[in-house]
Each structure stands twice: as structure tokens, then as C-alpha cells.
């Protein structure tokens, strides 16, 4: 807890995208993804336009392409799933590369890959231009129940502590010559998880007592309330509105 509280997901910067109020950014990203999801999959060019829009945002936020691409790797399990799609889907078959593939399966794979990747890229841009704490404040501004925001903020604050504790237990197991190789070792892993739960819960009790002794009554005082001006909303809305225009054109054109 002595280290800085900036999370490694956040990328420090002073761009116009960083400066936008967090709730505007969250709303913009959410609307953008919703628009992307409701675009017809046959409009291939529309997805290219969306990608260009996101690239524009990344450029404005001065986030290098390599960084975004590396963070996109989280998607890999779904890429594997999408690759399977042409083989298992129904429909008329097409011959390609000497294999018999389903045409609609190919469309489905494209659909999932394109929409999923755009969604992940939008979330990555949001997370890397917005501080964690600001993100939570933004969620609160968007009328998420304050109890939920508090739970989330505790989770964020202590997530690293608990993960570190688990990492230390793993190192302790390894330094005693333990390596989980099969079903026989589940018991050891499970008792680690049990110990971790007891430690987390007891830490929660201690945190709660510490908070009560400092006057906590069930709500957190809001110290810095973020507000957004009309121009800031307009700037944030530029992304989803352009996307909406692209989406509507995609529906109009055959």
C-alpha cells in the first residue's frame, strides 16, 4: 500500500482525452459499443470506419498502437472460438483452402471477431486514459448505487493486496518444493484458498473497525465531485454520434 496508487492499466498523459470527465467517457464508450453491436455484419466497411474512429481517439490520447495491440491479447480465447465457427456452423458450404467451410459460419466468425475486438479496444482506451478512482467517481455520477461503488472501490484498493498475498503463498509453496501437477494436489491449493479467504475476511473486519472509529456511518463523503460542461459532453459525444451515423448508413445501404 506504500506504492503509488496509479494502477498499471492507467497510462499517464495530458491529452484532451485524459482531460475529459470520466462519466462522459464511460457513457461515450458504452454508447459506442452498443452502436457497434447493432451494426449489420454484412457492412464490412462500417467496421473499418469504427476502427479508424478508435485509432483517431488513440492518436488524440497519444497512446501508441503497440500498447493497445498488446492489451488486445486478452481476446485470444475468443479468437480460438471464432476460428472454430466456420467448421461447426450450419448452412451452405464454401470451398476454401481445400476445406469445406460454412458460409454463415464465416460470417459469424467475422461478426464476433470484429465486434469483440472493437469492444475490447474501446474498453482498453477507456481504462488507459482514465484513472481508476476517477472511473469509480464517474460510475457514481452515472447513478450507480453508492454501495456498489464503495464495494468496487474496496475491491480495487485491496485487489492488489490480496493478489500479492496469494502470490506470496504460491512462492512459499514453491520454495517448499511443491508443484501442482495433478488432481492429487487440489487439496493444497484449496487450503491456500481457504487461508486466503480467512485473511481477506479478517482484513475486511479490521478495515471496517478502522473506518467506524473514524466516523464511518455507511456512506462515504464525496470530496471531489466531478462535473462536466456542455462542451465536454459534446466532445465526448463525438465518438458515438459519428459511429451512429456510420451504423445508420450501414443499415441504409444494402
Amino acid at each position, binding site marked *: 500500500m506504500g506504492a503509488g496508487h496509479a494502477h498499471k492499466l492507467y497510462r499517464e498523459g495530458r491529452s484532451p482525452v485524459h482531460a475529459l470527465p470520466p462519466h462522459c467517457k464511460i457513457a461515450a464508450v458504452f454508447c459506442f459499443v452498443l452502436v457497434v453491436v447493432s451494426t449489420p455484419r454484412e457492412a464490412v466497411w462500417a467496421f473499418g470506419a469504427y476502427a479508424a474512429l478508435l485509432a483517431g481517439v488513440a492518436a488524440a490520447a497519444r497512446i501508441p498502437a503497440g500498447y493497445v495491440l498488446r492489451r488486445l491479447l486478452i481476446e485470444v480465447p475468443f479468437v480460438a472460438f471464432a476460428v472454430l465457427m466456420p467448421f461447426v456452423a450450419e448452412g451452405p458450404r464454401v470451398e476454401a483452402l481445400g476445406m469445406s467451410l460454412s458460409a454463415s459460419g464465416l460470417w459469424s466468425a467475422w461478426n464476433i471477431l470484429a465486434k469483440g475486438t472493437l469492444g475490447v479496444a474501446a474498453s482498453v482506451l477507456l481504462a488507459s486514459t482514465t484513472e481508476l478512482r476517477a472511473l469509480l467517481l464517474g460510475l457514481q455520477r452515472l447513478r450507480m448505487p453508492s454501495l456498489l461503488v464503495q464495494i468496487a472501490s474496496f475491491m480495487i484498493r485491496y485487489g492488489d493486496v490480496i493478489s500479492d498475498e*496469494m502470490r506470496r503463498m504460491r512462492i512459499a509453496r514453491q520454495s517448499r518444493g511443491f508443484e501442482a501437477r495433478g488432481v492429487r494436489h487440489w487439496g493444497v491449493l484449496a487450503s491456500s484458498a481457504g487461508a486466503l479467504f480467512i485473511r481477506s475476511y479478517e482484513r475486511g473486519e479490521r478495515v471496517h473497525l478502522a473506518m467506524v472509529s473514524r466516523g464511518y456511518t455507511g456512506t462515504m463523503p464525496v470530496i471531489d465531485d466531478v462535473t462536466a460542461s456542455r462542451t465536454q459532453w459534446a466532445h465526448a459525444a463525438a465518438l458515438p454520434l459519428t459511429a451512429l451515423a456510420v451504423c445508420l448508413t450501414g443499415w441504409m445501404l444494402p
Partner: protein
Amino acid sequence: MHVPDGFIDAPVSVVTGVVAAGAVAVSLRGARRELDERTAPLAGLVAAFIFAVQMLNFPVAAGTSGHLLGGALAAILVGPYTGVLCVSVVLLMQGVLFADGGLTALGVNITDMALVTTVVAYALFRGVVKLAPHRRRTVTVASFVAALISVPAAAVAFTAIYALGGTADVAIGKVFAAMVGVHVLIGAGEAAITALTVGAVVAVRPDLVYGARGVTARPLEIRSSPLAPAAPGAVARAEGPAAEAAPATATSEASEPAGAPEPAGTPEPAAAPRRSARRVWWAGLAAALLCAGVVSFYASASPDGLEKVAHDKGIDQNEEDHAAKDSPLADYGVKDITDARLSGGLAGVIGVGATLAVGSGVFIVVRRRRATAESERS
């Protein structure tokens, strides 16, 4: 099972979003009852725990490994409402921060992984605890059954959502067989780890396990009664977990020192472990058979629906190019149904076999561990 954007179409995403919001709202109210005003810090820490535990990979077989989903674990350890809340928060943060699971698919993910898993697991857990004799081992067995069924239940829920709004053109029978087949295996691992974890927590601090509140109090009282003349504090100590329900913060402080000396003060009767270990094995077998029953039931029920649709749709198909998507359903219908049924049945058989093997293997390990723990204790 984190669903990405674009996998489920927009209307169904919105509907599941509304369902998820409702579930979270109900849980917020219920969690206050479970944790009183300690809700925020405790639920936050438990969410952090779930988040960390999801990173705990356990080796399954032949180099592959799975990771915990944690829904059943959360429901049993901290109660169903807090469990839903914690897993939802974890999913929300994973979606927003790590882009793991799409933002528009958040409703799908919460409904599927937070709501269905937790509710199914807790209902089963309560059922087993009610029916079985009240002892500490019952809690472990009940957690095993709860986690075992909850994961395939989530897979079934996913298939249902997919059937309503899936964008991919894969027959529902195939999706069902694949999802449930895989998740029966994952569920076996989840069940073993959940049961062992709950067992470990119950052994150290039974007052922390929400699901064991009514269960562990009684055996503690019985066991401490022969020692009562020697230790007058024993009775008061045994009542510690029961008094935990009082909302005052002082009780949590009071129960903490009470929990620590407990394992030392409660030697189990020597005959108990062997008999109940066998019972555990039989319960595991029953759970496996029950699971297979559920799987085969759905596997045979689903193609019936598909058959009907194929029959209905097979007549008027070839006008619009939009409808052409559905026509293969009619063409491939019969072949597919046999496929689905076959693979569904196969998944069930594989599931039972794996569950049996894994279950009995784990139980042997548990028994050995318990036995060494008992001998160390006494």
C-alpha cells in the same frame, strides 16, 4: 465464459442487462441484512478475494488447467446476496478495466455467471444441508454438490440466452452439448476445490462460513459438554458463532478470539472419520448420478424443441434471402438431432466418468488429509 461484445444481439443484451440490474438491486437490499453496516468493506474484500481466486489455476489433466469461477464459493462463504454482489462487481471491473467480457454483454455475464451460479449453488446447498445430518462434514458435501451443479447450470443458462439472441449460426443442440459437456468437467474441478476450501475454512473459523451457521453450532455444543466441568468457558465459546448474527460490531471482535483456540479444544470421536468418509463417497456418487440425470434430461429435451422448430419451419422457407439462414436447419435437422443427442449423451457419460474418478480421487486425498490432521490434533 466471459461473453464478448457482439456474441449476443443488442435486444437480448438489453433485456439481460435489465435482469442483471434487478438482481443487483435485490442483492443490495439483501446484503445489508447479511452483513449489516459492514457491507461495503467486507463485500469489497470478498470481491477482491474472488478476483484473486479466479487467478488460481488448478491442473486438470494432461497439461491443461482450469480456474475457479467462484460463484458457489462466494454464496456459501458470505451468503447468496453478498455473493451475487461480489461476483457482479468482479465482472463489472473485469469488463471495464481489463476488457474481459464486453461492456454490452455485461448483463449477459452477470445474469449467467453471478446470478445463476450463485442462486443455484445456494439453493442446492441449503437443500442438502436441510436433508443431511447436521455435522461439519455435511457442509463440505453440500458445497461439493452445489458447486458441481452450479457450473453446468450456468452453461445451460448461457445456452438459453444464446438460443434467444445468439448471433452465430450454430445449432442450439451443438452449443448445448459443447457447453454442458465442457462445463460438467469444469464443474467437477470447481466442486472439488470449493468443497476443500469451504472445508478448510470450516475447520479453522466455522463462524465465518455463512452457510454453516445453523450447522456447526450444535456439534460444537455436544462435543464441549463432556469437557464442561474442566472448562466453563467452553459453552460460552460454543455459542460464539450463534451470537454472531447480532448486529453489534462488538460480537465480531468477541468471536475472533473464540474462534482461534477451537480446533485444539474439539477432538473428534475416533470412529467418526471412517464412517462419514464413506458417506461422503456415496454422496459424491449420488451427486454425479444426479448430474448425469440432469444432463441427459436436457440433452434429450433440447432436440425435441429443435425438431419441432425444424418441422414447423421446413414448409415455407425460400422467399427472402434472410430466411435462407434458417432453411439448413430443416435440411440438416435430422442428422443434427442425432448428432446432438449422441454428443449430449456422450457428454453425460464422460461427465459421470470424470466426476466419479475425480470425486473418489479427491475424497481419498481429503480422507488422508483429514486423518493426518486428526492425528496431529490429538
